[in-house]
């Protein structure tokens, strides 16, 4: 059976689906509570936050479960800040889902947190964040593992709290997805949805290259409507050595992009920041030789009005049983006004996107 689009309110068993979207805040807030949750049924949550700091001083963003404010939270973090790669572990009264790295007010933050919510055991989460972004400067990128030392209580609310008043500034947006598990509702046999399903990640572009290319353009996008994209590229190197970049609207203006990355290459850990790029780099420390493979995944906040921020992971330089590098990168495009209507995936070497390269773009249907 075919069907057209499925609009909100709709829940589809077997998917991760949006259950809360703050929209871009029109007035600054200090905290937002997402309530009426049922963690024991939902089991998993995915929290995406793009924050514009609106506080008088730089703030961190906390996440509390059931508004528990006791020292019941633990974390281990791995971070890259300029050329420093470091790690810390601590016990706190909250999870820090983004962190003021240095000292800039009014900066942007972008984070993704995956939470295992079901009671019976300690609750855990994994968070990626890129922090304190202004113009072409990305101050930090972090990977965190969290625990909530509560095994008994059903999670009924998530509390997102800035530790400075109005830290959730105008333009901030909080989106929560849950794993949908439903035994009630309308049962269906084969159902082929021809239009959008509200609240799910939908693949809107897929291209496997049969001929090597230097660049591939994904056109006809509506970034201000779509808001969030997830790009996945499996590059097969098509030249002696090529790196993959991304240009929204093919903007090649010099010094319009920046990044902060954290990398592991063999036994070396390192961090690097750049503020003078002409593209987003999906793997600043890696390149693909001929027929080598790299896998990159990038989450992009596409809507105009603010700097466009991206958080990406990369593994590169793969041949046989050699994996050359692994990287976590925060990227920024210093352009706030123009709607994204295309994304150009490009190599810095002619035909660097070799035969077999796959490019996939997903949109979160909001």
């Amino acid at each position, binding site marked *: 059976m075919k069907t057209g689009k499925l609009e909100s309110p709709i829940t589809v068993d077997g998917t991760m689906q949006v259950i809360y979207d703050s929209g871009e805040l029109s007035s600054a807030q200090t905290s937002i509570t997402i309530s009426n949750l049922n963690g024991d049924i939902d089991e998993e949550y995915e929290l995406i936050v793009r924050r514009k700091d609106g506080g008088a001083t730089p703030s961190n963003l906390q996440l509390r479960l059931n508004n528990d404010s006791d020292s019941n939270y*633990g974390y281990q973090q*791995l971070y890259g800040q300029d050329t420093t790669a470091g790690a*810390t572990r601590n016990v706190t009264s909250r999870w820090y889902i983004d962190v003021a790295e240095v000292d800039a007010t009014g900066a942007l933050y972008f984070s993704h947190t995956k939470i295992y919510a079901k009671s019976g055991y300690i609750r855990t989460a994994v968070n990626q964040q890129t922090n304190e972004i202004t113009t072409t400067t990305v101050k930090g990128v972090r990977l965190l593992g969290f625990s909530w030392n509560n095994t008994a209580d059903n999670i009924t609310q998530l509390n997102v709290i800035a530790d400075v008043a109005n830290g959730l500034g105008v333009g901030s947006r909080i989106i929560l997805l849950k794993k949908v598990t439903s035994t009630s*509702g309308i049962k269906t*046999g084969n159902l*082929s949805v021809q239009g959008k399903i509200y609240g799910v990640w939908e*693949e809107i572009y897929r291209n496997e290259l049969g001929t090597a290319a230097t660049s591939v353009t994904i056109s006809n996008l509506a970034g201000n409507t779509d808001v969030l994209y997830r790009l996945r590229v499996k590059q097969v190197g098509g030249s002696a050595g090529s790196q993959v970049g991304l240009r929204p609207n093919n903007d090649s203006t010099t010094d319009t992009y920046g990044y902060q990355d954290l990398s592991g290459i063999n036994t070396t850990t390192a961090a690097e920041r750049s503020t003078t790029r002409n593209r987003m780099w999906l793997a600043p420390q890696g390149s693909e030789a001929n027929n080598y493979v790299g*896998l990159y995944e990038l989450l992009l906040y596409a809507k105009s009005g603010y700097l466009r921020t991206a958080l990406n992971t990369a*593994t590169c330089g793969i041949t046989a049983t050699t994996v050359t590098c*692994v990287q976590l990168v925060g990227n920024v495009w210093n352009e706030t006004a123009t709607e994204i209507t295309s994304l150009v995936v490009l190599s810095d070497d002619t035909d660097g996107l070799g035969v077999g390269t796959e490019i996939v773009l997903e949109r979160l249907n909001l």
Partner: protein
Amino acid sequence: MRRGKITPKLASNIKINGWVKAYDHTVTGSAETSLTISGLVGDTDKEYKLETRIVSGYNGYVPIWLRINNDGNINYGRQVLYCENTTVAATRDSLSHIPIGSIDALNKILQTETIIHAKSGYVRAIINSANYSVSGTTVTGLEFAGYSWNNTADNITSLVLLSETGGLGIGSSIILWKKVFR
């Protein structure tokens, strides 16, 4: 068109050009040592996302391994970046499995997410993140790794999770997402 809840009978029954849950298992009754997710068609599904929350049922150190098509030969490569407390380190090696994480004591917890680029024709690339040996308010370590499976030809038909005896303890949750296309 609007509708309320839709409950597809099987993951393959709904085609949304997106991610659908293909496997969902929680360990109950008694701890398990291994489990196999079979019936996969990697060349059709193209991408998998494996999410685990493992509760260790083994009284000691237990690694959790992933094998593709149960390939136990030294056909996997790894580059890992990890940290414990204030120590940051990296390692590169070749293995007979993908170690998605580990747990150092009974009842401690591991949470992982593994993205698998499944389609044959080229070496398979994998990205994994893990939050490991979690107990109380202590997160022992964090790792972020890239893997390869040095097999370009075979369609992926199964994923096998392995541990020490009883390592997949009661309460362990294993979920596999796959892409389903119109």
